[in-house]
């Protein structure tokens, strides 16, 4: 469904998108910087400066994942990327946020920060009707991004629970297998149940 919406949006605004894209492309460093700082706001004051340092991905993987993901999201959004194209980048950020100390809304709020940053970057051009129109569609796209991120967030959380279940299963899996303690349901009614417990009595 979402894909269709995106494609529609793409088809409706063919070339005019370029100018908006051009402006945003030029202001990319400022916007990204602002966006990254906005997400840092959600971390404890005392650790922000540590997280800010993006120089070494091995010393600070959180900043690395977030900033790389954000850049990818930004590029894809302004160039009209499809959800499939955006997802991998969005996932990088969401994956980190999903296991940190945030409620879901807190974890994903960063997406909407992009709106005000883009608006601020376009302040001088807002009067141009074409830009204005493009901006509206871009904002709609960011909203959709919010929904997409919800999907990804849920995927991460489900993964976490799946991992928990897997660990619990795996802990004794081999033992049960060996002990033949898992009884299979017979193919046809009336057949004897196939299960033995010979080794663990």
């Amino acid at each position, binding site marked *: 469904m979402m894909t269709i919406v995106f494609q529609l949006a793409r088809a409706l605004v063919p070339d005019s998108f370029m100018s908006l894209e051009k402006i945003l492309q030029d202001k990319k460093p400022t916007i990204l910087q602002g966006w990254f700082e906005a997400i840092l706001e959600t971390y404890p004051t005392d650790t922000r400066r540590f997280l800010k340092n993006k*120089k*070494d991905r091995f010393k600070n993987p959180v900043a690395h994942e977030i900033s790389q993901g954000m850049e990818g999201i930004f590029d894809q959004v302004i160039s009209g990327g499809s959800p499939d194209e955006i997802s991998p980048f969005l996932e990088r950020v969401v994956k980190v946020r999903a296991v940190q100390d945030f409620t879901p809304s807190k974890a994903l709020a960063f997406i909407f920060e992009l709106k005000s940053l883009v608006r601020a970057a376009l302040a001088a051009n807002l009067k141009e009707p074409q830009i204005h129109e493009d901006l509206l569609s871009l904002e709609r796209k960011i909203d959709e991004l919010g929904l997409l991120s919800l999907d990804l967030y849920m995927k991460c959380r489900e993964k976490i629970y799946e991992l928990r279940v897997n660990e619990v299963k795996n802990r004794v899996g081999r033992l049960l297998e060996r002990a033949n303690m898992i009884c299979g349901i017979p193919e046809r009614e009336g057949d004897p149940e196939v299960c033995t417990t010979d080794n663990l009595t």
Partner: protein
Amino acid sequence: MGVWVSFFAVIVLIVIPWVGAQGAGQYLFGIVIPYVAVLVFILGFVYRATKWAKTPVPFKIPTTGGQMKSLPWIKSNPLDNPSNNAGVIARMALEVLAFRSLFRNSKLELREGPKLDYASNKWLWIAALAFHYTFLVVFIRHFRLFMEPVPGFVGLLESVDGFMEVGLPRLMMSSLILLLAALYLFLRRVAVPQLRYISLAADYFPLFLIIGLVSSGILMRYFIRVDITSVKELIMGLVSFRPTVPEGIGVIFFIHLFLLSVLIAYFPFSKLMHAGGVFFSPTRNLPNDNRVKRHINPWNYPVKVHTYSEYEDDFREKMKEVGLPVEKE
């Protein structure tokens, strides 16, 4: 809060001798307090060090930072994973003299981007080295004041220290570097949020004290001159246990001396004791040779265990069923 409390505490410590070191008060600040301070320092230091020394080391737990000594064809790392006392001495020497562990921070690493960047973490190591070594140099330079005749190495050190030949009297690089390093260590605490978060009054206080001490020293040497002959007379008196207070020593000297007295009296009861403590650290001062030489825990005591026979009693029948050998049939 800790910053301000410490700051005002040091201001008060400056005001006290300023007001008090007049007339008879000079005996108090020039003789009594320094003696008391030295006494407190010695007793306190010995007390703390013996307390550590007397606390047992139940386990040999060096932090190993390199390959252990194992098979002869495997290259071991005797410095970061010493297998004998010689290695431990070398490891400790590097630790104490070169702050090796802090240096690890600045190991060249692969970074994002085209150029290799490894400067950022070196600052703490450099500042720490600068701070401690210039402190040592300044300390040795003061030998001029309490040794007669002045030993040759003091003169030598001074000529090296003052090689810039700026100012009259010559500017000693060590004092300047010491002051800058102390300021850096202070600013670092205030500017880096993580550090501000963990810093206590006890972290700021000694820094302010040292900044005050060095500043008063610099003031005395270059700006508010005092009669150096009288100062030496006073100090020689202290050292030879025939204390006198000559006339006409400026109050700045008493401020300097009082700050020093506070510093050394405070020393044994503060984090400054890391100077002694580092030698006791069981993660650094022991060889990783547990497998070769048994380490004895002086308070080792017997514990309740689950013996094999108890275990067999629990499971004998099941063991026999699968053909596991048992002790009792």
